[in-house]
C-alpha cells in the first residue's frame, strides 16, 4: 500500500491588514513620488548622454520598493536590506541620500562606490545595505547569512532581499531559500514577479508562475500580494517582519506586478512586449492608485499631495546639481581597496 499524500505546507491565512494611518500613507506617497521623480530625471540624463553605461528603471514597481523598505529599522544597527535593480525606492527609504544616487549613476566620487561600480550597485555599512551584484540571486544566500548572524547573536533584527522572477531560475535562489528554511533564520524574501526577465516572458522562465509556491516547496510560509498596491505590500511586509522578529523563521512575499519598460534604457522592448498589456497595467499604476486612495478614500486635500510633489521636485533638482558639481575620484582610487586593512573598514 502506498503512503497517502500529505499536505506538508499550505498558504497561511492572510493576517488582518494593519491599519495604515493617513500620515503613514502620505509618507509612502512621498517616497513613491521621490522614487519616480529620481528615475525620470536619471532617465532624462541618460538620454542626454550624461550617464555612462545604461539605465535600469523600476517604473511601475515603486509600490514594492517603497512598501518593503518602510517597515524596516534603519542605520548600521538596523535591518539588512539588499534590494535588486528595480528597487531604487528601497535605497532611498533605507537612508541613501538622493544626490548620492545621481552621483552613482554618473560615476562620481560621491557615489557610494567612489565610482567603482554603477547603477543600483549601491551600498554601505552606514545603511546596512550590501552592494548588490549583477548576477541574479547571489544576494539571497548573503541575506540568509546576515539573518544567521542576527540569530546567532540573539538580536531581533531581520534581513531582507528582493529579486525578480528571472532570479528564481538560478541555483542560489534555491540554495538560499532551502538553507534559510532549515536554519530557521529571520529573513524576508520579496519576489517581484514583473513577468519579464530581459526579453524572456515568465512562461519561458518557469512552469510555476506563482512564485510563492516555490517558497512553499521549501517549507517557507509565503503569501502573494498585489504588487501595485503599496498598502498591500506594506501590510504584508509588516506582518512578515513581525514573524521574523518573533523568531518564527523566514517569510516569502510574492508581489505580482508588471515591468513597464525594457530591461534597461537601451532595450527596444516595443519589439517584444505586447502593447495592450502595457496599456492595461498602466491603468494599475501604483502611484495613481495611491493618489486615488488618498484623495477619495481618505479625503486628503489635493493641496497636501501637491506640496509633497513640489518638495520632491526641489529635492531632485538639488540632488542633480550637487552630483553634477561633484568630481570623479582620483584615478589612484582604482588601485585602492582590493583588501581591507581592518574588519571595521
Amino acid at each position, binding site marked *: 500500500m502506498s503512503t497517502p499524500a500529505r499536505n506538508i505546507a499550505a498558504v497561511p491565512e492572510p493576517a488582518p491588514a494593519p491599519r495604515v494611518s493617513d500620515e503613514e500613507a502620505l509618507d509612502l506617497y512621498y517616497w513613491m513620488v521621490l522614487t519616480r521623480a529620481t528615475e525620470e530625471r536619471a532617465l532624462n540624463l541618460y538620454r542626454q548622454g550624461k550617464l555612462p553605461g545604461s539605465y535600469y528603471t523600476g517604473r511601475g514597481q515603486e509600490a514594492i520598493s517603497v512598501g518593503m523598505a518602510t517597515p524596516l529599522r534603519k542605520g548600521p544597527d538596523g535591518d539588512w536590506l539588499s534590494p535588486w535593480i528595480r528597487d531604487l525606492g528601497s535605497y532611498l527609504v533605507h537612508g541613501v541620500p538622493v544626490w548620492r544616487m545621481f552621483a552613482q549613476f554618473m560615476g562620481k566620487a560621491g557615489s557610494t*562606490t567612489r565610482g567603482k561600480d554603477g547603477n543600483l550597485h549601491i*551600498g*554601505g555599512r552606514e545603511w546596512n545595505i550590501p552592494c548588490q551584484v549583477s548576477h541574479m540571486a547571489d544576494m539571497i*544566500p548573503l541575506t*540568509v547569512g546576515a539573518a*544567521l548572524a542576527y540569530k*546567532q547573536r540573539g538580536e531581533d533584527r531581520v534581513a531582507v532581499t528582493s529579486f525578480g522572477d528571472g532570479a528564481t531560475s538560478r541555483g542560489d535562489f534555491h540554495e538560499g531559500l532551502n538553507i534559510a528554511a532549515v536554519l530557521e533564520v529571520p529573513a524576508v524574501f520579496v519576489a517581484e514577479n514583473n513577468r519579464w526577465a530581459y526579453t524572456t516572458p515568465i512562461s519561458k522562465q518557469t512552469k510555476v508562475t506563482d512564485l510563492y509556491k516555490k517558497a512553499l516547496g521549501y517549507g517557507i510560509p509565503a503569501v502573494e500580494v498585489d504588487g501595485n498596491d503599496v498598502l498591500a505590500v506594506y501590510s504584508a511586509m509588516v506582518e512578515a517582519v513581525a514573524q521574523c522578529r518573533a523568531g518564527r523563521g523566514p517569510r516569502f512575499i510574492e508581489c505580482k506586478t508588471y515591468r513597464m519598460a525594457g530591461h534597461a534604457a537601451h532595450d527596444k522592448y516595443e519589439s517584444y512586449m505586447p502593447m495592450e498589456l502595457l496599456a492595461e497595467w498602466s491603468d494599475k499604476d501604483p502611484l495613481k492608485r495611491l493618489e486615488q486612495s488618498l484623495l477619495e478614500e481618505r479625503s486628503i486635500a489635493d493641496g497636501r499631495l501637491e506640496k509633497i510633489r513640489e518638495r520632491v521636485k526641489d529635492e531632485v533638482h538639488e540632488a542633480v546639481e550637487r552630483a553634477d558639481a561633484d568630481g570623479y575620484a582620483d584615478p589612484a582610487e582604482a588601485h585602492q581597496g582590493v583588501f581591507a586593512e581592518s574588519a571595521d573598514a
Partner: protein
Amino acid sequence: MPELTYLEAIRAALHDEMEIDDRVFVMGEDVGRQGGAFGATKELQQRFGELRSIDTPVAESGIVGVAVGAAMSGQRPVAEMQFADFVSCAFDQLITCAAKMHYRIGWAVPMVVRCPNGGGVGGGPYHSENVEAWFHHHAGLKIVCPATAVDAYGLLRSAIRDPNPVVFCEHKFLYRRVKQDVATGPRDGQLVPLGKAAVVREGTDLSIITYASTVQLSLAVADSLAAQDVSAEVVDLRTLVPFDRETVLASVRKTGKALIVHEDNLTGGFGGEVAAVIAQDAFEHLDAPVRRVAALDTPIPFAPPLEREYLPLESDILSAAADLAAY
C-alpha cells in the same frame, strides 16, 4: 607542547579561535555532529553548540554565500568545503560577492573557506583537485597553503583573524602524515602571519621554491643533493596571496638558479607567476633558465599507477634539480 598531526592542528586552531572569539563559527556539510568528513571540526558542536558548528544542506554556493553575509554582519565564519573540488560550485560567490565587496564599498568580508586540497590519496578526478590557481587570478582573495602542522595551526588562526576572504587550501595528503610539536592554546598558541614565506632549508647552489605537499618532497630532494655536494635552498611560500616576492627574490639572487615545484598542474599554475617575477626582477642573477616541476595538464586519474604518473614525485624533482645544478 603537544605533538599534533596537520589535521589535529587545524582542529586545534578552529577550537582555539572559537574559544576566544564568540563571532567565530564553522559551517558546512557534516561538520557538526560528525565533525566533518575528515574530523577537522570534531567535537566543536558538542563544545560550542549548534549555532556555532552548523550542519548545512549540500549546497556549496549557498554555504559560501551565507558565510559572506554573516561575515559582513559581524561574524567570523569558517566554511568548510568537504573536498576542495566542490568549491567549483561556490566559485561565483567567492569571485562575485566575497572578492569584490570591499573594493566596491569598503565593507570588509572576514571569512575563511577551508578547502581540503590535493591528490595522492586515490581520490580520483573529483576528490583530488588543487584549487589555489583558480582563485589566484582574481583580485580580492587571500590564498593560504600550509605545509606543516605548525603552519596549518598558525596560518589558520591568522586567516580567521584576517579582515578579508581567505581560501585556505589544506592538503589532505598531509592530514595524518605530517606531525609536529605545535604551540596551541586560545591565548598562547603560536600564530603565523599571512604573506611571509619561510626558508625551510638554507643552501647556496639552487633555490627550490614550493608550497604545501611538495615542501616535504623538496626537503628530501635537498638531502639527496647534499650527498652529491649540491647545496639546495628550499623556500616554502606558505601563502600565495599575499605573495612574499622579497624572500623568493633574495633566495634566487643568492643561488642564481630557481626550480619551482607544485603539485597543481603546470599550465596556469602559481609557478608561472613565480617564474615571471624571477625573470623580471632577478634576471641578472640567473645562471640558468627557471625550471618548473608540476603535475600533468590532465584531470587527476584514479588508479594508483595513473595517479603516480600524474603527480610530481620526489624523483621528478630530484632529476630536475640535478639538471639545474649541473647547468
